[in-house]
């Protein structure tokens, strides 16, 4: 089979993805999801598998800057892309304001949904710096949390929005 999207070695494909600003390579089977590639090939286990059929959002990453289900993306489809995972959000020990908001507002319990929630919220605030409560709830409606009842997650995102606005207001 003639193959683009990476050279094929007996049905396997060489791919290169920039993950959290670090170029990474792997040789994967076509059926390997981006989720499994991140977790198994690169040991980036912050991206979680909650359903593997696209409903729960636990596997959300930013793919070329926009939220995507890593379980519904083949690793080969992401060849050449930029991916941000939860591990890439903090700068050293300095949490991203959305992460801070989740901590401050107790927006997590078991933490399993948290990476997907946080990345979805990061994208929301990039596109809508002052969302209403309903806008926050709508933006997060594709991410299931089984623990919190969402109230503190919504508060966390609102908290982060305020913090980010403050930051951009002070030069």
């Amino acid at each position, binding site marked *: *089979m003639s193959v*683009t999207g990476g050279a094929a070695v007996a*049905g396997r494909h060489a791919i290169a993805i920039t993950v959290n600003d670090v170029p990474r390579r792997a040789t994967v*089977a*076509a059926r390997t999801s981006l989720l499994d590639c991140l977790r198994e090939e690169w040991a980036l286990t912050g991206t979680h598998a909650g359903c593997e*059929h696209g409903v729960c959002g636990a596997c959300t990453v930013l793919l070329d800057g926009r939220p*995507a289900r890593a*379980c*519904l993306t*083949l690793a080969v489809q992401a060849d050449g892309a930029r991916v941000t995972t939860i591990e890439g959000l903090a700068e050293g020990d300095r949490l991203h304001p959305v992460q801070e908001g989740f901590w401050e507002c107790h927006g997590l319990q078991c933490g399993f949904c948290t990476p997907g929630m946080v990345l979805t919220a990061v994208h929301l605030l990039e596109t809508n710096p002052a969302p209403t409560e309903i806008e926050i709830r709508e933006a997060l409606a594709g991410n299931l949390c089984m623990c919190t009842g969402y109230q503190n997650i919504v508060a966390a995102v609102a908290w982060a929005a305020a913090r980010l606005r403050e930051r951009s207001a002070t030069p």
Partner: protein
Amino acid sequence: MKPVDFDYVAPPVLEEAVAVLASAGEDGRVLAGGQSLIPLLNLRLVRPRLLVDLRRLTGLAGVRAAGDGVAIGAMTRQADAETAPLVRERAPLLAAALAHVGHPAIRFRGTVGGSLAHADPLAEVPAAALALDATLTLTGPDGVRRVAAEDFFQGFLATAAAPGEILTEIEIPACAGRGWAFVEFSRRHGDFALAGAAVVLALQDGRLGPASRIVVLGSADRCHRARAAEARLHGEPPTASVLDAAAAVADAGLEPASDVHGSAEYRRHLVRTMTARALGLAAARLAAP
């Protein structure tokens, strides 16, 4: 929950994609955004030997003016189509329908063409395409052909696209001045609808003309033109009683099945209710353009 083993190509040009797909025959599948196909792969409900990814065919993504209407490349992400000014202006019904598709993360990946080609009977985009009298362009080994939305949807997950044919573009004719609405009812925000209605109302000399369409979803194996209801509109003024009479027969000819989300009777009722709501909204837009 892992797919069966398959191979994968992402050809850089359309002709190659068509050729590869054609040579794979039944074993080949187009991969667009993957938001319908990959869940089916993960559940092993679909077992292809080869996926032909269209992602490198940059020419298939994007929105352009087509006369007074708009043409949307098949690989245009649903979110991009939804927010494209040309779509909002020239096919606002489609933009409204797209807003109901899943969640943002799904729409950033899912494509307009993928939704049409997948032909889920509960999907919003096919219903909008049918209501808007869209024309779909298919490119295959034997060349390019254009198919009316009317003829494209052929049943549950079944379309007029022959094996080896790729949907490349959807064109929506001008519909300025028309009333429109998309209304649906789903269990949760972002879910596939239990029932919905896509409605276009077109006035001709103060009466509803033949371009007025009512498409309902949720009770058939595909999106469905409610012709009996349309017939109640044609030639009539858009008064409440006319709209009500149309909505009352929106379920005519439908034979929905009962399932875990409700009985057949309930679905018929929802179809009528959604149609009534959509007709009301569309008529209001007619009155106040």
